[in-house]
């Protein structure tokens, strides 16, 4: 039913994996931190389908200038991210622009799961289950450069479906993504990307089966 609503945003890319500069596979439950240079193209591939990829971006020269979910959705007047979305920073810079998207809708209101929020949402006994904010902290601590929890703000959930109704209800629904779907961005400036490939087992955001994703990076000259 909803598919028809956002087919207009569906767009494939002409870039082929063979010409990519880098290719990484990030398993579920792992962080991935990487710098992307201005003009480079970044593709995130949902290899097995229905996998939430929790992602944060920062101005590579100033981590206090970072992705802002609220500024991004307000500027485009729409809560869903797709082809044409400019990912804005807190200082009003365009960090990246989504240039291709075969999924059609990505969330930025649902945030990242945490041991503490799992206790609230599901049960106090869920504290020891793995969660995205565990991975985020591990990733930024390994990256060093003085990053801390204060740098973990509202993120993007690529391939995740969090519909909001006109009455103001917010729910987590089955993913709209399938195996092989991808989202591609062009970096408008040098950015740092921090990913947690979501390990959540308590809701349908990963189809109850977290799976690996692929990160592809092309140079600006291709």
């Amino acid at each position: 039913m909803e598919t028809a609503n956002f087919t207009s945003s569906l767009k494939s890319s002409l870039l082929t994996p063979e010409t990519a500069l880098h290719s990484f596979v990030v398993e579920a439950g792992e962080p991935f931190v990487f710098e992307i240079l201005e003009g480079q193209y970044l593709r995130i591939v949902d290899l097995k389908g229905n996998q939430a990829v929790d992602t944060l971006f920062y101005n590579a020269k100033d981590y206090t200038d970072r992705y802002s979910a609220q500024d991004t959705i307000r500027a485009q007047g729409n809560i869903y991210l797709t082809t044409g979305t400019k990912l804005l920073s807190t200082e009003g810079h365009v960090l990246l622009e989504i240039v291709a998207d075969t999924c059609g809708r990505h969330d930025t209101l649902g945030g990242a799961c945490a041991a503490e929020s799992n206790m609230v949402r599901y049960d106090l006994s869920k504290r020891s289950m793995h969660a995205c904010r565990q991975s985020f902290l591990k990733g930024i601590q390994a990256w060093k450069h003085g990053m801390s929890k204060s740098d973990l703000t509202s993120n993007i959930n690529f391939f995740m479906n969090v519909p909001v109704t006109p009455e103001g209800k917010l729910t987590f629904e089955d993913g709209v993504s399938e195996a092989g779907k991808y989202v591609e961005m062009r970096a408008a400036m040098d950015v740092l990307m921090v990913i947690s490939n979501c390990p959540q087992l308590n809701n349908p955001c990963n189809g109850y089966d977290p799976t690996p994703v692929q990160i592809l990076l092309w140079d600006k000259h291709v």
Partner: protein
Amino acid sequence: MPMSLESTLLFSDTLPGGATWSHVLKRGTALRITDVEGGANVAAYFLNFDNRSERFNLPDTLKAQHTARLREGHVLFSDMGRVLCSITEDTVGWHDPIAGISNASLMEKKYGKTTYQQCRNEWYQNAREGFLIELGKYGMGPRDLHATVNFFSKVVVDDLGGMQYVSGNSPAGSYVELRAEMNVLVLLNTSPHPLDDAPQYAPKPVELSVSRVPMPMRDDRCRTLCPENARGFVLTELYFL
């Protein structure tokens, strides 16, 4: 159950439009914000004053309560699964948690440029700068300002995800009351909502009052709104053991 019969007024003041305010709202007290003239917008941000790395987490607040609007009965969650504040009273029914705050370039684009030199204290202020300056007074900065909420304003989302500002959401005399469940550093700013469609810069004042209020009972409306909130209150009580 209204708390007004049992609460003791400690303090009240008027905050003009376009201004920033902060206060450490102690556990066991409540802040009432009253939209005196109607049409006010109050951007708000919250931190645990005793451990400032713990702060308001918008996504955790929305997904725990399955909502993209805030109203009476809802609570504001921190990133640690605890309740910072509860919305114990609310005459409006819809407060915007998704559209964020105004900044200098947005204000200049909408209303034109003003300087203090020309306009003195009538100059156009914006919420982001106001919050950053206020956070600076507590030794914090841009890294510490995360997602915020807008009291008295309404933004609806259509079936395709489109966001629409709804004017006239808050008539004169509307109020919202926030009961602190921890010692909460509350930051408020009364700049216009970033999607306000009024062509003139005309931020509205609000009245602020702080009262001592009873601790929430087992059958507290915010605690019993959903099982998620009940667990949030348990985690908050654990913190104070």
